[in-house]
């Protein structure tokens, strides 16, 4: 039997049963469409989380002061300890290879006032390397210079949200004065907006030179964090261990379990978050998969009905010289074509659904090529699996019985 004949027979039989064929296709369309749409939501969430974490910087290790060994019953909050010093930061620069840059910071939450307005925000004391390590830059004005660091200048770079709070949206605040801890600072820049909300937002804060912060805000040379950019993603774990060993030695701690600092590995964080979003994708996909399964059962149901209805025709075809495989191929082709058509429409519909989800809600969606391949693969698989049994039943019909069938 020629392939072209197989297709002609398939479309002829689908044409003679238009409404049933279209309803069966609809089942597959809904199944495939929801798989594509659901996975696109999962992928969108995943991509959002990844880009947010990556916006913090590339190949980043962040050392924070941790629990201090003390006899006190009251434990300090995370990061409240002051065990990291400028010397620790300098030691990392000197002794650890495979790092691109080290950016120590001091942070503190303060009330900030400008002309007639005020806000409570985080003040970050940073050095010149901070912006490159954190993958950020100024949208307006200039970054902090070596000279400003040396002279402990009272200059400030505002996050876009802080700028909005203090001066109003889209106002150029360069040259304006703000007051932090009743000291006057000159605004020299505004950083680019990075999105994100909450404590980790890099939009709602003020950057001032590290030395200025140590002098006027904290009054000591302790550090809040040390951000380290590693040269290569594969070196992350190794460098993390090196820094840990170095700091343990510097702080005279023998047991790593009682370290007075902690190191956040960006890669680990990414892994954790993406495993969460992968689970979400899987869950959404599985729910959608159920409708695909129901669609597949619809195919099988229709094909079984068709085989019963066309028993005499099968007997006739066998008497005209159709072999078992000719008969089973014909019915298999029918179910595969049904699922294939359903699959194509489903992909388009899923895409439209994903687009509508993005447009109508704030959820981003990403239709990836693998989710399309998956959907096409699943629909072909369904066509074959759910078409096989009816086709097999048709093929093994006894031609004499089939011809006698009323």
């Amino acid at each position, binding site marked *: 039997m020629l392939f072209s004949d197989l297709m002609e027979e398939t479309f002829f039989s689908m044409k003679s049963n238009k409404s049933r064929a279209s309803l069966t296709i609809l089942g597959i369309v809904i199944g495939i469409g929801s798989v594509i749409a659901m996975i696109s939501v999962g992928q969108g969430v995943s991509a959002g989380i990844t880009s947010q974490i990556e916006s913090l910087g590339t190949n980043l290790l962040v050392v924070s002061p941790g629990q201090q060994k003390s006899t006190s019953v009251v434990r300090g909050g995370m990061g409240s300890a002051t065990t990291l010093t400028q010397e620790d930061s300098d030691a990392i620069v000197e002794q650890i290879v495979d790092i691109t840059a080290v950016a120590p910071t001091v942070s503190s939450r303060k009330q900030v006032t400008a002309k007639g307005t005020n806000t409570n925000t985080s003040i970050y004391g940073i050095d010149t390397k901070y912006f490159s390590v954190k993958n950020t830059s100024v949208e307006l004005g200039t970054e902090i210079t070596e000279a400003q660091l040396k002279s402990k200048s009272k200059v400030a770079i505002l996050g876009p949200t802080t700028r909005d709070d203090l001066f109003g949206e889209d106002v150029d605040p360069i040259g304006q004065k703000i007051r932090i801890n009743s000291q006057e600072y000159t605004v020299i820049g505004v950083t680019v907006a990075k999105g994100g909300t909450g404590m980790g937002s890099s939009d709602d804060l003020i950057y001032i030179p590290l030395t200025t912060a140590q002098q006027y805000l904290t009054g000591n040379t302790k550090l809040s964090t040390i951000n380290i950019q590693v040269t290569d993603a594969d070196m992350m774990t190794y460098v993390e261990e090196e820094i840990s060993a170095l700091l343990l030695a510097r702080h005279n701690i023998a047991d790593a379990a009682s370290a007075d600092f902690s190191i956040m590995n960006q890669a680990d964080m990414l892994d954790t978050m993406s495993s969460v979003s992968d689970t979400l994708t899987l869950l959404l996909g599985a729910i959608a998969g159920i409708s695909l399964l129901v669609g597949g059962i619809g195919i099988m149901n229709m094909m079984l009905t068709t085989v019963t209805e066309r028993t005499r025709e099968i007997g006739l075809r066998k008497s005209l010289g159709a072999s078992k495989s000719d008969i089973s191929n014909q019915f298999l082709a029918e179910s595969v074509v049904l699922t294939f058509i359903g699959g194509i429409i489903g992909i388009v519909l899923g895409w439209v659904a994903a687009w509508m989800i993005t447009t109508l809600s704030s959820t981003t969606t990403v239709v990836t090529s693998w989710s399309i391949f998956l959907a096409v693969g699943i629909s072909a698989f369904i066509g074959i699996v759910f078409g096989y049994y009816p086709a097999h039943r048709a093929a093994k019909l006894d031609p*004499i019985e089939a011809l006698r069938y009323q």
Partner: protein
Amino acid sequence: MIKCEHITKTYITGDTETPVLKDINFNIDEGEFVAIIGPSGSGKSTLMNILGALDRPTSGKYFLNNKNVFDMSEAETAAIRSEEIGFVFQSFNLLPRATVLRNVMLPLIYNTHIPKSARRAKAEKALTAVGLDTDRWHHLSNQLSGGQMQRVAIARALINDPGIILADEPTGNLDSKTGAIVLDTFSKLNSVDGHTIILITHDAHVAEHAKRVIEIKDGAIVADRKNNLKI
């Protein structure tokens, strides 16, 4: 062309064995027009199924063109049905919603030896041979009369140029007038075109059209005689 040696067929239902054919022996040569006649339950339909390679005998040998059908695989018997046998059924068995031409060409999709381009010409030749008017060729099969339907079915049986045409009660669903036209068609195909025709019937009048009559009763041949045709 056809050689049946000691063919038996026994249906087994549970513990009871029902012998349908008992030791059938006969030969049919090329160009013969044979009627196999017998009352219902005589086993003639079972015999036709065996002759048409749709069924296998329980024992005995059936040679079709010197090939033992008993030893063939399912694919081989399918090929035999495709290329060497043309079936004509009592109830026509045409595809409804399909045109006459499509119905006639249907067997060709299972015969890969004939190129697709040659199909149309073969169908037209077969339809001409059964004398169906050209203006009917594009009609849907369910728009035809019974006699026309049966002639389409005969054209379908002819399309592969089979050695044998097996007709099972071809006039059973037709009135005597259209039945006569169909039987004339068979006679013409036999005498003019030289097709071997085996006609299964219970009707002695129908059997009169054949050159040879094999009479079967209770699964055994009771008579095998030549007809003196009054042509």
